[in-house]
């Protein structure tokens, strides 16, 4: 089972994190930015599970962190989408450049 070294899994999660970051930098649409945030959270989950399995197999803390991160990500997505839909109602746009009332 351990023939794949942990570095390979960490390479995957690091790459996924920075792909999400790239999406966060280049996108200007709120829904696609939310998708990029989901990718980032998933890369963190992979990290937690891999560290728990490879470095501390007698404990379960990484599994619990993953479960709590998934629960909070679901809550965060629901609140964010409620805000986005409300913003679309008042501004007719979900571009971040159009929502500048609270910028200054």
């Amino acid at each position, binding site marked *: *089972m351990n*023939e*794949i070294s*942990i*570095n*390979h899994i960490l*390479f*995957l999660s*690091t*790459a*996924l*994190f*920075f*792909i*999400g*970051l*790239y*999406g966060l*930098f*280049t*996108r*200007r*649409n709120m*829904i*696609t930015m939310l*998708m990029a945030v*989901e*990718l980032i959270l*998933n890369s963190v*989950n992979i990290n937690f*599970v891999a560290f728990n*399995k*490879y*470095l501390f*197999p*007698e*404990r*379960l803390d990484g*599994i*619990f962190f993953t*479960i*709590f991160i*998934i*629960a*909070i*990500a*679901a*809550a*965060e*997505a*629901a*609140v964010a*989408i*409620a*805000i*986005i*839909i*409300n913003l*679309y109602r008042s501004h007719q746009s*979900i571009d971040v450049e159009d929502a500048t009332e609270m910028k200054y």
Partner: protein
Amino acid sequence: MSATSIIFYFLATFILAAAILSVTTRKIFRSAIWLLFSLIGIAGLYFWLAVEFIAAVQIVVYVGGIVVLIIFSIFLTQQSGKEMPKVSSSRILLSALAIFFGFALTYLLIYQNGFRIENKYFDSDIERIGTHMLATDNTGFALPFEVVSILLLAAMVGCIVIAMKSKPIEK
């Protein structure tokens, strides 16, 4: 190269390719579908890591919940076939440089760090997870569990309050 490593490399390629397409495609609906594929690949990775409970939670919450919510909100906010405006090439170049150097630095740190691998059997039985989740001793997670349930309730109430149509002021 054995079957497990072939499966791992296949899953890794699939996840990264779907993620890259998800952040670069210009049609928002396709972006959501690529995100869906990437999340399914991550669930497969959890199956490969033999943590079946996390894989099941990943499929139920992410694939069944969050992606469906995102697709609903795409339908509610704009036409799904419309292309997003083109990103300026200077922004693409600067972001690519930033993530390239960030990735290089992070992976260099990971590569040079020698992890001490424990070659023990990892028991992630659902029964064991459940016992630890609701234990009240030092290793238990009963308090965070309760806090998360309060948080979910608060988030639900908050969503309803935000999304509720405000009544016009009567005079």
